[in-house]
């Protein structure tokens, strides 16, 4: 296979990966951030202690985290069909990717929020700030470097998951590597795909590190 033959394939696959990862990152943040906040706020000694609720959320998150992604993807096929009407294509892959990444990201959010000093939260309480204000103006901004670091790890994990998910019809770089490299013995294309993946992951990690470092003014 020549470069001219590979380029369009790579280009298309990269676009699919970007779509899958982009959308699932968006939905992961949308659901995972509030879930992570809930894990901290409802905890014993949190802003609104509801230990029973926190325990339930904790179990749900742990179940989500302990399922291998490939199992999760198959197990939630009915749910995927319910949400997007199909189990094939990029949109259908976004559902299991999101479901798989939300518990992961929520734990990272929880860890980042726990890094915020108790004294800062208490200072805000002493000023008469409401719980919503404390979450919005103290916890989240103070934890921002940690949240960015957590998001970076999540995006990288999503790229990995998306390679797996792609084989079920979502396309993308992982799928390309498997279809051409493994099934058609196009070793060169497989190597190029892997290199592209490595470069993308490197770029995202470095970008995340730079942003997190610039935000962390300690």
């Amino acid at each position, binding site marked *: 296979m020549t470069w001219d033959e590979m380029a369009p394939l790579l280009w298309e696959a990269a676009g699919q990966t970007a779509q899958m990862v982009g959308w699932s990152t968006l939905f992961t943040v949308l659901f995972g951030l509030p879930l992570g906040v809930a894990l901290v706020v409802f905890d014993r000694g949190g802003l609104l202690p509801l230990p029973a609720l926190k325990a339930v959320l904790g179990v749900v998150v742990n179940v989500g985290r302990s399922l291998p992604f490939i199992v999760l993807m198959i197990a939630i096929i009915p749910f995927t069909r319910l949400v997007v009407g199909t189990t094939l294509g990029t949109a259908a892959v976004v559902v299991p990717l999101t479901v798989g990444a939300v518990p992961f990201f929520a734990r990272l959010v929880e860890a980042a929020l726990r890094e915020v000093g108790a004294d800062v939260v*208490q200072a805000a309480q002493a*000023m*008469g700030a409401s719980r919503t*204000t404390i979450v919005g*103006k103290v916890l989240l901004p103070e934890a*921002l470097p940690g949240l960015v670091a957590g998001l970076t790890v999540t995006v990288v994990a999503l790229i990995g998951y998306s390679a797996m998910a792609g084989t079920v019809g979502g396309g993308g770089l992982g799928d390309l590597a498997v279809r051409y490299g493994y099934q058609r013995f196009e070793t060169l294309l497989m190597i190029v795909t892997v290199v592209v993946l490595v470069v993308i992951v490197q770029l995202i990690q470095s970008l995340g590190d730079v942003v997190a470092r610039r935000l962390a*003014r300690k």
Partner: protein
Amino acid sequence: MIKVSGLRKLYGDTVALDGVDLHVREGEIHGVLGRSGAGKSTLLRCVNLLERPTEGTVTVAGQELTALPGRELNLARRRIGMIHQHFALLSSRTVAGNVAFPLEVMGVPRAERRRRVAELLDLVGLGGRGGDHPHQLSGGQKQRVGIARALAGDPAVLLSDEATSALDPATTRSILDLLKRLNAELGLTILLITHEMNVVKSVCDSVAIMAAGRVEESGRIADLIRTPGSRLTKEIFPLPDPAPPGSVTLTFTGDPQRPLVSEVARKFDVEISILGGSVEELPGGSAGRLRVAVSGETGPALAYLRERGLLVEVAS
């Protein structure tokens, strides 16, 4: 201004506060002195209800905080400033942003906020540093930001939890001077807790001494010093304890220049030898404590000193 009655606080089986009464008068600087674990922080955090007391009431500026529901408590807290040992500044905000935070909480409009922040930073001697981030400041400057922030709501009362304990002596001095100035210029009532006698000696009008969740003694420093057996006196003026049998300990407030000892030696047929003593400059004037051995016409000599307003304690 602050009235605390019958305060008890339990953490499981730990009794952090065991029936504390405290009265802080308007415009005074009131210290709470005690060792680590005495319950000082718990007491302070009960005053603005960061901790809910197990029993007892807290009244600040005529409002019984222990009786208020959550929303009204939040409103009341805006009139109570607080500063912290480790400053508790938001690292995600600039100095100005930190001072603006309580104003945002109160819903003060942006333009007004900016004006107030500049005013407050000037007040604490940080004019022009508004754009810096907390990590660019020294400890003393961070505490000044903390103080500016605490004053944003124009509070009647300032609570200070070991505000100088993380600072070096010179910086401690400058922060204490600032607190004293705010007390004098704004009429701010200050309740400060500390484990350092030095802090009490240099700024407090009154003090409560705490140990094991109880107040052991409290009152104006000038009054406590004249109280026989006062713990405060013993700690301010360290002398061997117990006093040697027969020795006399004289405690005096006011002008230390008065030549009372030579006066007594001249008027009465006594021999006086000095065993130890010291004089301290306190906010209410100077005070001293002298331990002497007296022989001869002891009775009338001591009676004369008592008449002059000295506290005379004879060790048996």
